[in-house]
């Protein structure tokens, strides 16, 4: 057996290009489905973990997936906004603590999450550098966001304009980075956290400008009545909140009308959760424009769909794999034919058919062993870094 392996090894080494190609092909056929399995399992775990720790989400009626993805994973699809009145509504029931979220804007490609300090308590987010939010205009970065942007406490970050050519649209606002969070291996790592009010500043609902009562430039005032001054569009609104201008920031209209994208409802206990859900469902029959979701259920539904897709993927991989195996068999058969002369020679020298089979079998065995080793190594690497890979590839 040793001799067969030795001879097989020499053959493979001499034709190293062909041998390497074969090893790579076999490895790929083996690694792809297994690695995919590993990563999908990890994705499932990560998605569910986040969903399972979030008891209830309230938002506008519509795509439940969009709502959950936006509020839990800060996905790009922004659901219809609801108003802050919805927060008061939940608070008044005394069944749950409402944590509002306004996830709409972006800063350099990363989602800006408008919320309040309760969110940090709820998710157990700890400050690693700097401090938490205190004043309007400040932001706190997730661990990976800080890394990606290369920013830390004391730096400035501009929000991205919502639409390039919308003159009445959302303008960039300069935020002050005051803190960086410790890593959590979740979507929070890649977010820019601001106070809800700061998000409204970005939108322009809360703004600051010079005191109109003290204005001397007549082109800034459109109309002056006894009780009201109407400003023209020339009036510049501050794009940055500083200690000097912070007191001029104000909102127009009632805070209860201001928009948010979702509310995380944290019920006091299971009974409260059921009661709260019941209220929305009952109201739903009367044209209630909001919905209440259990994220774990929505994600489980999503995963079921994904895993249906995975079954199709598996079938595809199986077919491709079979085709590859057939191709490999063909390659082997052809190379066998090419080696007919060699086989005839050793047969003449006195080699039995069994030994010839063993020699060729040894070659296949070495290739398979090398492929198995490589597969094992790759799977070990994938398994070791599955969390990071899933975050990089599937879940941002």
């Amino acid at each position, binding site marked *: 057996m040793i001799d067969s392996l030795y001879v097989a090894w020499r053959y493979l080494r001499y034709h190293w290009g062909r041998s390497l190609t074969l090893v790579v092909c076999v490895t790929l056929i083996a690694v792809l489905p297994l690695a995919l399995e590993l990563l999908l399992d990890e994705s499932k775990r990560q998605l569910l973990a986040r969903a399972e720790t979030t008891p209830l989400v309230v938002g506008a009626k519509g795509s439940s997936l969009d709502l959950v993805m936006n509020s839990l994973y800060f996905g790009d699809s922004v659901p219809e906004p609801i108003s802050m009145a919805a927060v008061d509504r939940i608070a008044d029931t005394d069944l749950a603590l409402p944590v509002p979220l306004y996830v709409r804007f972006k800063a350099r490609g990363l989602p800006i999450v408008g919320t309040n300090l309760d969110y940090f308590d709820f998710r157990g987010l700890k400050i690693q550098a700097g401090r938490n939010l205190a004043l309007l205009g400040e932001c706190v970065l997730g661990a990976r966001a800080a890394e990606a942007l290369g920013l830390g406490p004391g730096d400035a970050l501009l929000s991205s304009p919502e639409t390039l050519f919308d003159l009445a649209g959302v303008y960039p606002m300069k935020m002050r980075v005051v803190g960086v969070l410790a890593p959590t291996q979740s979507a929070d790592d890649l977010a820019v956290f601001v106070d809800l009010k700061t998000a409204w500043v970005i939108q322009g609902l809360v703004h600051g400008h010079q005191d109109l009562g003290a204005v001397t430039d007549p082109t800034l005032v459109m109309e002056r009545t006894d009780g*009201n*001054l109407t400003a023209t569009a020339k009036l510049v609104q501050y794009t940055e909140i500083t200690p000097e201008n912070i007191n001029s920031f104000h909102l127009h209209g009632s805070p209860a009308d201001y928009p948010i994208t979702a509310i995380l409802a944290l019920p006091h206990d299971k009974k409260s959760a059921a009661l709260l859900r019941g209220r929305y469902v009952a109201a739903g029959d009367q044209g209630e424009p909001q919905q209440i979701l259990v994220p774990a259920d929505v994600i489980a539904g999503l995963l079921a769909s994904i895993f249906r897709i995975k079954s199709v993927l598996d079938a595809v991989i199986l077919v491709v794999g079979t085709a590859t195996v057939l191709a490999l068999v063909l390659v082997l058969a052809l190379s066998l034919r090419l080696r007919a002369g060699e086989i005839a020679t050793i047969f003449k020298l006195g080699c039995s058919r069994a030994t010839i089979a063993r020699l060729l079998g040894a070659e296949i065995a070495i290739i398979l062993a090398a492929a198995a080793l490589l597969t094992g190594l790759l799977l070990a690497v994938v398994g070791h870094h599955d969390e990071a890979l899933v975050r990089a590839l599937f879940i941002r």
Partner: protein
Amino acid sequence: MQPIKRPLPRAAIAALILLLSAAAVSAQDRLRIYTVNYPLAYFAERIAGDLAEVTFPAPGDVDPAFWMPDAETIAAYQAADLILLNGADYEKWTGKVSLPRSRLVDTSRAFRDAYIREAGGITHSHGPGGEHDHGGLAFTTWLDLSQAAQQAEAIAQALIRKSPDAKEEIERNLHALRDDLLALDERIAEITRTDPGRPLLASHPVYQYLARRYGLNLISVMWEPEELPNEGQWNALEGILEDHPARWMLWEGEPGQATATRLRALGIDSLVLDPCANRPAKGDFLTVMTENARNLDRIFGKGAGER
């Protein structure tokens, strides 16, 4: 043979240490309550007693409604177990600061439908049909002592939620406070009932709730205690006096000598009615309100304005 050591003294010492540390720990386990003005701090102190450590950090010379705390103070608020807000947009600084909603208590939420909207004042808007301001809210809600009692109740409820075990004690304290407040409320009502339509002036619009509750015929101007009003303001005052012949002007603090003198010339006496938004140098909320009641008595009681 060695004598057998007695284990008892050791156990006793251990138990003592345990007891002391438990006591120390429970002392440190007091709730931390932060408030946005002094009246709420007073109510919280009366209701919570030993259960909580109450802090109202604004300096005495700053009107808490227009105060902006520094970063350190903001952090202290963020770390508190309860943050008592007055409501009616009193604490404007909270609109520019991040506070954990779960620990905020809006003490006047129960009577939010009864907020008084300020008339007059200049609002602004942007563009025709653009966003516009409504007038602001009057925010010295506690000057209506029946409302003050409701605010105290809100504080008590929040405390009970945090420390359900101490419910009895909290309710006991609340009732005592309510009794004091409502007694004073009744007393002031009695005083002002004697002459309901008597015209009065206020140097600054801070007595809206007081006026409403106790039926005061009160018109406010926008003067500052330290500043001498300008001629325009004096003229405006005289204009008001034509239809509203007031003999008394209410001040938050002692008016300047020159102003008082000139008012006296117009037949108007000055009287201090301290809203008590800040912690008083002497006494407490009740003593200040009681003093206010006594001052009102000067107006409505004997010596009722005829000179």
